[in-house]
């Protein structure tokens, strides 16, 4: 009951945030909040394979980047009025770009997952990293789409009846998508598939002995997770109005991992909290000194060595005591 009240309050706070930031003259915080929501979606997607499925993917930035490039490439063809592969027109309609980004990143995840899941352990970590690096270098070498510099998307994708150039409207759109995503993910985790995938994490051999074709289940989970990361990437390009190979760089995969661990592996809300803490910490430290990564590194070390279970475990302990 208490949890339900808290979550209603949290949602109300998120909806009302633009008024707060305006009243306090902190409009920059609104764009930070938008980015937090987007990274939260990406981190929660990673957490689905990592925390619930037990697959440590070090290449999720690939799907994040693919989702972003779908938006970027479609925009470029729309802008220059050229055809993709000679027959596909571009578009700047979000109702088309987002589903396409989800679809394409899901297909990419299915292909990469189908190959990667043949290995396990450290090899799985490295092969997912390898595929992400391949895509990174592929996009670096695609001069048509800006190469290293990427694609500048001058205008955010359009939605009917909404003024998407307004930062506040964009925030609400992202918030609506993030909330839908969150409740969808919660449903997924409690579904038949979600319980089986969690069983596979706990004891793969046992699940196989029960009759579960483990590989197929893992692949499906990996694909679903890829679609989530792709959705986040597509939103990110809309928020930053910029798609570049950096979205796929291995350090981006590392950052997503940090957000997951920071928030709490295998928890629903954790990755969103982790994304929030990570990005706020980053922007606060960056405002203090150009050497902020030093402090960030030390904080990471202290976190790993000093605590376990991330923010969610910490909140649990506080909640348990209070």
């Amino acid at each position, binding site marked *: 009951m208490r949890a339900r009240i808290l979550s209603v309050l949290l949602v109300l706070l998120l909806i009302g945030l633009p008024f707060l930031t305006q009243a306090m003259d902190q409009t920059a915080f609104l764009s930070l909040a938008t980015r937090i929501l987007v990274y939260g979606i990406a981190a929660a997607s990673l957490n689905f394979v990592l925390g619930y499925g037990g697959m440590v993917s070090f290449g999720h930035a690939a799907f994040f980047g693919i989702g972003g490039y779908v938006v970027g490439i479609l925009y470029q063809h729309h802008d220059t009025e050229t055809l993709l592969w000679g027959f596909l027109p571009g578009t700047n309609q979000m109702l088309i770009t987002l589903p396409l980004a989800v679809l394409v990143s899901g297909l990419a995840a299915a292909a990469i997952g189908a190959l990667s899941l043949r290995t396990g352990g450290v090899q799985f970590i490295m*092969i997912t990293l390898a595929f992400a690096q391949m895509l990174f*270098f592929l996009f670096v070498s695609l001069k048509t789409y800006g190469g290293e510099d990427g694609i500048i998307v001058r205008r955010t994708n359009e939605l009917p009846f909404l003024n998407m150039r307004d930062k506040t409207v964009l925030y609400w759109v992202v918030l609506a998508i993030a909330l839908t995503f969150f409740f969808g993910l919660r449903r997924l985790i409690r579904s038949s598939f979600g319980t089986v995938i969690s069983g596979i994490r706990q004891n793969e051999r046992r699940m196989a002995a029960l009759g579960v074709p483990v590989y197929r289940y893992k692949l499906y989970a990996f694909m679903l997770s890829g679609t989530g990361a792709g959705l986040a990437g597509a939103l990110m390009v809309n928020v930053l109005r910029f798609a570049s190979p950096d979205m796929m760089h291995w350090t981006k995969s590392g950052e997503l991992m940090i957000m997951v661990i920071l928030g709490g592996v295998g928890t629903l809300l954790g990755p969103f909290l982790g994304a929030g803490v990570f990005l706020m910490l980053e922007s606060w430290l960056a405002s203090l000194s150009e050497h902020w990564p030093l402090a960030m590194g030390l904080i990471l070390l202290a976190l790993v060595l000093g605590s376990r279970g991330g923010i969610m475990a910490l909140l649990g302990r506080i909640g348990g005591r209070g």
Partner: protein
Amino acid sequence: MILVLEQLLNGLQYGVMLFLLAAGLTLIFGIMGVINLAHGSLYMLGAYAGTWVAMQTGNFWLGLPAALIVAALAGFAIETVVVRRLYARDHLDQVLATFGLILVFNQLIILMFGRQPVYTQLPSAFSGSIEIIPGLPYPAYRLLIIAVGLAVAVGLYLVINKTRLGMLVRAGSTNREMVRALGVDIRMLYTLVFGLGALLAGLAGYMAGPVLAVQVGMGEQILLSTFVVVVIGGVGSIKGAFVAGIALGVIDTMLRAFLPGMLRQVMAGPEADALGIGISSMGIYLLMALVLLIRPKGLFAAGS
């Protein structure tokens, strides 16, 4: 033909560098089960420490012990303060903590030396070229790197196969419990192996200095390639690190040297160059994916 031979030597030189790094990483991986992303930082520390001493004294050779000592000390420090607490943790925690170490070391270097690359002078005895075969002069310093790398390979082979330490290392990479059962101070063994890995990384870093630029981020660049070598070679296998290191060094260098030219035959110049560079950068990752699909534990996986 001469051009191919020259690139082959360049590949060999890059390959032994990869081997120097991969040898330590694969042992740390195989024996302690730790993913150490900070291995590239040790490489960078060695390069900076050695280069700084060489610049201050004007003598390349005085830089060498400095590089080795600083890298080894940093290795001991990392092992005792951070990595030791990670042995029992899962890979996630290890990745996160050693990722933090990278951030720390990179910023410390920036604070001390700035962001500009530092260049070293070649030692005078090796600044010229040697004509290996008629018509192919090759930089003597690069030959030195190849020689040092091969010497280290032979030395490691002897240590691993002929000494008690090597026996423990071999046992440790296949069966950790057995080493514990032998009553060996496993902590000591871990620290030693980690220190050895750090030493080799520092050596590689300093040797690379005159060939590449000494700069922040040099560690991460080579780190990923090193991981690819370790995984292709098989975690815990020195032999695998050697074979995969040389192979990858040669393949990567050849692709970069010749692929753009080949592509230019079929498409426009700038696009061919960009695509050629892109594909050759993908080369080693593609190779790793292929190897893992055929042999999911790498070529020379310990215990298989």
